[in-house]
């Protein structure tokens, strides 16, 4: 009699896991396997047979400079994320002390992170437009003359990276603020009694306390900079030298039907992001990963 119930015991967890595993395998693992397979073919995404071409796609990716140039655009976003993290750290530190209207400022700094990306794209298209918000503000301060902010590659990329800071700074800020506020208050009091100034409090109490969150933010920024899509796609469509790696991949796959080449590009991006994550895990061992 004990036998059938035990067998049921073994089946029960799988009943709960059936749907989640089917979804996980269908939409995460099967695509990865297929993508690697496509990357060695010249498939166009429609024809029934796959034609194996070896590492040709990878060779094309690394030798045709215009395909690889898009990585330089990531540099703008990477630089922007340094600014973004620095600003987030500054505001989180400042607002962790006693400041008037603290909740108001916290809300204002965080809110952009919640806004729809397409809406942000349009808001800033108008902002950078000829005679738009930015020109009007500069006009108030005395700088006259219309500028095509999105007109040259450098200016356009800097502008778009600026939009990205505007949009994402709030998340870093709230993460830092949460980490700072979880530091016990007695530490500050003790430091204050010992005569430590604000900078010393930052260096010796706050900085160590936010190290894990800081390293998380760095990794998110690096992988985020490599996979930028929404802001440039919505605002410029990748024109005037603002095309990013993901925009290029989407165009290759869905406009030019080069599924094979696009897959190779996506595999390269995936490997880079996994490598970055791995390096970060090695540099900053995360003692909170204890889910097993």
């Amino acid at each position: 009699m004990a036998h059938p119930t035990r067998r049921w015991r073994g089946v029960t967890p799988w009943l709960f896991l059936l749907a989640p595993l089917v979804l996980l395998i269908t939409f995460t693992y099967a695509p990865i396997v297929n993508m690697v397979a496509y990357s060695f073919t010249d498939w166009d995404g429609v024809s029934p047979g796959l034609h194996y071409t070896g590492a040709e796609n990878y060779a094309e990716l690394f030798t045709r400079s215009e395909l690889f140039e898009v990585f330089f655009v990531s540099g703008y976003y990477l630089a922007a994320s340094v600014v973004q993290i620095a600003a987030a750290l500054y505001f989180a530190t400042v607002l962790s002390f006693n400041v008037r209207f603290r909740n108001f400022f916290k809300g204002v700094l965080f809110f952009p992170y919640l806004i729809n990306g397409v809406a942000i794209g349009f808001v800033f298209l108008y902002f950078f437009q000829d005679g738009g918000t930015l020109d009007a503000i500069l006009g108030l301060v005395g700088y006259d003359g219309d500028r095509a902010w999105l007109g040259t590659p450098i200016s356009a990329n800097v502008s778009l990276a600026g939009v990205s800071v505007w949009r994402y700074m709030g998340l870093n800020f709230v993460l830092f603020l949460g980490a700072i506020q979880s530091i016990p208050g007695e530490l500050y009091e003790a430091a204050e009694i010992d005569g430590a100034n604000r900078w010393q409090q930052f260096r010796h109490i706050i900085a160590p306390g936010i190290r894990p969150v800081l390293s998380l933010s760095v990794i998110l920024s690096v992988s985020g900079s490599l996979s930028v899509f929404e802001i440039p796609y919505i605002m410029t469509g990748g024109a005037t030298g603002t095309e990013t790696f993901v925009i290029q991949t989407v165009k290759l796959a869905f406009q030019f039907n080069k599924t094979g080449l696009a897959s190779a590009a996506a595999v390269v991006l995936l490997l880079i992001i996994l490598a970055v994550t791995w390096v970060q895990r090695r540099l900053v061992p995360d003692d909170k990963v204890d889910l097993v």
Partner: protein
Amino acid sequence: MTRRTVARALVYLSLVLATLVVFLPLAVVFLTSLKTSGEMADDSGALTLPDDPLNFSNYVTAFQDGRMLSAFGNTAIILVFAIGGTILIGSMTAYAIDRFRFRFRKLVLALFLVAALVPGVTTQVATFQIVNSVGMFDSLWAPIALYMGTDIVSIYIFLQFVRSIPVSLDESARLDGANAFTVYRKIIFPLLKPAIATVVIVKGINVYNDFYIPFLYMPSEDLGVISTSLFRFKGPFGAHWETISAGAILVIAPTLVVFLLLQRFIYNGFTRGATK
């Protein structure tokens, strides 16, 4: 003493500047949404106030010609199914992994953990083929299935919560004759409310804002969600910034309302979602 005062003044100055940087671009778009096309044409500058602050005609245009009503409807359907599905999937996975010891348990857990490292943007080239082959392309089911099937962060959140529920609760129910499904439904699930609240908020905002997935998988105009419908303003309303602005404000307004009402939950939710 004076140095402290100066430092304090500089701090407030920086906060006020940051507030302006956040507000000005949004405020100008709001002002623009209240202007008439005539006002836009006479080149009075972006910072001028609208002649009639109660001119909502651009909003009417955005709603009618921009198909924003059906966009909000589609987004609402996707939200309900995707969030409901995510909660079920996440809580079931967490319950099975935390409360049972079975063969390949570690492998299953590893599959979920590793999947969290793979950014969704990179695999869409191949995901597209799968979605297409199961016939979900260009239907509301594509985003629903992708949103609920690829959300590993929610599974993490549920896993942490299930672990904090004492096993003795399950055991006493088992002694009263409850089976695994009753334990899940009557004991575990009701105790997961805080986790569910977190997932509803984070997931809700992410789905509401997502552009990439609906853009790739639902090209039909009838299937526009708010992101894609707003994106389509670019064509027909090309130079009509007053209409585009009204559309953008229509999309931002619900977010603002939700944020003002649920501030604390939203901060907690995103902190929890990002750090795990």
